[in-house]
Each structure stands twice: as C-alpha cells, then as structure tokens.
C-alpha cells in the first residue's frame, strides 16, 4: 500500500508575527512542518505498521513538498519519523497558490499512483483549507475531510473515516484510491486502526518523536529534487497578497470592585446589555 503525504513548511506558529512594509516579515522566522501535515505523516505510519511490535511489513510513505531548498529540512523531519522517501518540487512560497499546488500534486499522483493521499486539513499559515478538497475534485477521487479517526479495512480496499460534526461523529466509508484530510484528533492514542496493530494498543498522544537514530537514517533516504516544469506546471497564481496588517491593539482591560459597577459599565460604556 502506498500513501502519499503532501507537506508544507510554515513559520513556527508559536512565534510572534512581525509585519514590515505591508507584509509578514519572515526574515528571522524559524520554520516547522505544518502541524496538520505532521499528523498526516503520523497517520500514514500508523496505518502501515504494527504499533505494538514496532515493526512494519511493506507499504510505502512518500512525502511531497513544494517549496524552496530550505524546505528540505522539514521534509527530512518527516523522513526521520519514518516516511520512506520524499519529493521536493522547487518553488518560492510567494510564487504559488492553492491551484498551482493542486496542479503539481495532480501530476505527482498520476505518476506515483498512491492508494491513499493523506493530508492536513489546512496549513496554519494561510488557513485556506482547500487543497485537499480541490485535489480530490480534480482527480475525481472520493474524499473524506477533517478525519478524527480512520480505519483501514482488512482487504485494504477502503477506509472508514470518523468526522466530528456538530451533532456527534459522522462515519464515511470511501473506497481506495481516495483522499483523506486529517484533523487534530487523528493523533489521539487509538484513532488509527489497521487490523495489524492490536485494537487495544494505545499510542502516545500526538505525533511520534523522531529519535536521533531516525534523524541520522533520514539523511540516507531518497529525496528527489524536481521543478515545476518537470510536472508541466507554470506558476501563475490567481490569488495575490495585497497587504497585511495587524488587528488594532485592544484597549487594556479594567478591574472593577463589584458586580453593580460591572453591570453599570457594561450598560453605559460597553453598551453590551
């Protein structure tokens, strides 16, 4: 079984956003794997392995990123977790939009023919939440988005995906090949079932740590450097960034002595009541 995981690098979301000349200043940014993509890598590994025994027989996880040469570092971290090989398609972050990404991924899917495409539900930089949906649409593949759980059928011909919706959990079975985007809960201890790892086995919460051993092994795993042209794509983004500004600073809060004062202020100053 082959699983393709597209992966994007994003500026570390923990760091404070700086704005310079109407754009986000990324000069001093440190970059990380988009967290939801990291969850997708973790999900792919859990689908293929015996988590209890710590072994895997067969299967392949291929990660793909579209980004500048520095993005190789984030790809390596997915390889260090256990992915098998990687493809990096060279492009500047600014020069591509979701449609360009979809066009590249479409070509890669045609070449790689994965059984399953697993992706993060969105990247936490732009929060667009559309590549997965558009890619499945373009490929004419069945899709299940925001997966909170996933179970690979014993015959490996379909997956059962649990999605958290307002009324509870909705289950969707999609035949493979297909596309699944994952949400945070997919990396909870028992969210991924594959009929290989014993059902009672509980993983640690969150994506696995890459050990130093994995980090060193990752250096020897294949990482193919490609260009947009290799996939017949020219970057002609239809979405352009016009400007970025921070929301206005909030006025400082006030402390009041008692409830009546609070109510009075809510009525008179905040006009909230």
């Amino acid at each position, binding site marked *: 079984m082959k699983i393709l995981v597209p992966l994007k690098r994003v500026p570390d979301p923990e760091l404070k956003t700086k704005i310079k000349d109407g754009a986000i200043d990324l000069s001093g940014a440190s970059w*990380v794997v988009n967290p939801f993509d990291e969850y997708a890598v973790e999900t792919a590994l859990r689908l293929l392995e015996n988590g209890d025994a710590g072994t895997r027989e067969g299967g392949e996880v291929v990660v793909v990123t579209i980004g500048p040469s520095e993005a190789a570092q984030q790809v390596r971290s997915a390889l*260090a977790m256990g992915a098998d090989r990687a493809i990096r398609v060279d492009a500047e972050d600014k020069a591509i939009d979701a449609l360009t990404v979809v066009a590249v991924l479409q070509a890669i899917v045609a070449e790689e023919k994965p059984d399953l495409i697993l992706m993060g539900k969105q990247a936490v930089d732009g929060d667009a939440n559309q590549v997965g949906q558009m890619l499945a649409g373009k490929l004419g593949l069945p899709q299940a988005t925001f997966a909170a759980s996933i179970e690979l059928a014993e015959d490996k011909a379909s997956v059962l995906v649990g999605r958290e919706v307002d009324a509870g959990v909705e289950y969707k079975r999609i035949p493979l090949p297909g596309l699944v985007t994952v949400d945070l809960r997919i990396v909870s201890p028992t969210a991924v079932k594959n009929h290989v790892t014993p059902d009672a086995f509980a993983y640690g919460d969150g994506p696995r*740590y*890459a*050990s*130093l051993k*994995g*980090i*060193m092994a990752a*250096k020897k795993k294949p990482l193919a450097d490609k260009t947009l042209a290799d996939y017949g794509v020219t970057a002609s983004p239809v979405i352009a960034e016009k400007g970025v500004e921070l929301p206005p600073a909030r006025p400082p809060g006030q402390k009041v002595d008692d409830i009546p004062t609070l109510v009075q202020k809510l009525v008179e100053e905040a006009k909230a009541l």
Partner: protein
Amino acid sequence: MPYLFETEEHVALRAQARRFAEREIAPHGATWEEDEEFPAALYKAAADAGMAGIGYPEALGGTGGDLTHVLASAEEMILRGRSVGTVVGLGSHFIALPMIVRFGTPEQQARFVTPCLAGDKIAALAVTEPGGGSDVAGLTTRAVRDGDHYVVDGAKTFITSGCRADVVVAAVRTGGPGHGGVSILVIEKGTPGFAVSKKLKKTGWWASDTAELSFEGCRVPVANRIGSEHGAFAMIMANFAHERLALAGQCVAIAELAYREAIAYSRERHAFGKALTGFQVTRHKLADMASRLAAARALTGECTIRVARGEMVPALCAMAKNVATDMCSFVVDQAVQLHGGMGYMRETLVERLYRDARLYPIGGGTREIMNEIISKAEGY
C-alpha cells in the same frame, strides 16, 4: 547561539528535545522542584521520546550519536523545560553507564545498560563518600572477596538519583590503599545490606534526588564487577572527562536561560520612567553576560569536538569546566541583580537558577581539583 559543531542533525534533534521538554517538563517543572522530586514515570517517557539513549550505541538500545548530541539535546531540555533538577536527574545515567559501555561485558551491558536506556531502570554513579570525594584514590568502602561474591561495607554520599536507583555503579576498595586498589561493582537495588540511608536536602537541583547510601555485609556477585579487579581508577578518571563536559554544557545552558530571562525582564521592567534596558549600565551588564557566555560556549564546544574525535584532553576538559562554571555563577548572579527584589523570590526562575548554579564548581570534581589536573598536565 548554537555550538559551532552543530549540523542539521543537531537542529533536528533540538527540535525533538524542545518538544519533549515543552510537553513533559515545562508545565510541571516548578512544582517538581518545590516537591524535590519528579515522577519516576518520566524516565520511561524520556526513553520513549528517544531522549534517554542519545550518545549510546544502537546495539545497546541507544540512538547513536556522540557527546555533541548529548550537549545539544541537554541544552534544549534545560532551555525549554526550565527545570535543571529534572534534567540532571533524568540524565544521571550519563555519568553511571558509560563505564559499563566501555569496559563491561556484553552480558553486563544487556543487564544494566539496556534497561536503563529503555527507561525501565534508573542508574546512579557512587564514588563520593562521607569521608571525602576529591581524593578518589582514598576511598574506603571495602569489598572483600568471598567465593563468587564481594562483601561490601561502607557508605556513599551525595549520590544523584541514589534514592530511586536500581543500578548503582559503585567505586569500592578491593585491594590495598591508593589508586591501585579500586574496583567498580554494580550494586543492584534489593541486594540485602544495601540501603538508602538518607535523602539529602540541598541548595539547588531540588527536583533531582540526592542520597546517602549504606552498605552492610552487602553481597555482590563477582559477575557484577566492571573491568579488571583493582583496575578501576583509570576507568573512573576517563569517565570524568565526559561528565565534566556534560556539566560544562549544563552551565552554558543555565547561563543562556538566565541571560534570556534577564533580557526579557530588563525590557519590561521600568524605573525612573524608562525600561531597565534604557540604562547604559544595564545594557553593558547584559553585554558582559553575553560575552562570557560566548567564550564559555566556544571552549566547551571545542573541547567536546576533541573528545568526540577520541582525543584524550583531561586538562582541557578541566579548563572548560572551570571556565563554564565561573561564567555561569557570574551570569546567574547578574540575572538575579537585574531582577531586583523579584530576583530573590522563590517564584522567579533566575532565583532557582542561581541556586542550581552553585553546584557546578563542586560536583564532578571541584574547581580546585580541576586546577590540580591542569597544573599536573602543564607540568609546573
């Protein structure tokens, strides 16, 4: 600023250490320090996260790598975990197990090293005695051969992780006086006659337990002796090189953390109508801290590269330890000063770092003993 020796591999390892420390240590570190203990389950968590086996061969359950990886990961754990006691407690195996890795038999390595790296057992090194620590060749804990066993009588003190250790790597006297009569025995928890006599109260390193251990007619199998009989002195001395660099690395990390705390506080705190950083004297203080930190990091880094390459440089290790401990004492003191009254309060991180830092010119060989080593090597 990272060490000069760091590669992309170290960057990736730091990212993992950071994640472990932020998740597993930082939220509880302050409580554990006040409680003078961290949960024993943390050893397993660290092992599962790949943090325990760094610097150990894969064949023994380690994750590979060398001293450079140990320093980088430990620094990140201190910076992000913000609990020095927890990190040094978790790391006590690093002073205890390397002797077994280097001089033990495969059977001894499987019994003692692998379970500790898997987080199933806790290791401690026991050299220091109530009667003295600097004079290792003068240790008096006796081990008398009786058939397939040694009968051990004596006491050890100031033993890091000693309260909970399953595997105590102890230096004992099997032979005559002086350095020619010392051997290493692994004494296991539960061996009759071996007891933790006291959990000690300390100035700093609170989250790390420190014990006094007693041995009375304690029968230890000869199979638990590491290396040759009476031949341990050189082993212990070789082990010290690694320990001292690890301690120097901790000093660099603690100082880096105190320095960052001092900058943040100086920017935020106002006096006489401006931030503390608005005073030139504050900026110069910070500049001095940064300069000494950079110098100590450079020497520690150089020495680490040499040791990782296999060079025997005990005097340089001693210099690195002294330079790093002096720097750290200075930096934490200045950081407390910049915090004013808050710097003296238990709720403030630099107050704790100030206490933690006091250990370093003492533990792992005192400042004076380091100078003895340097003097001998320089041949004055």
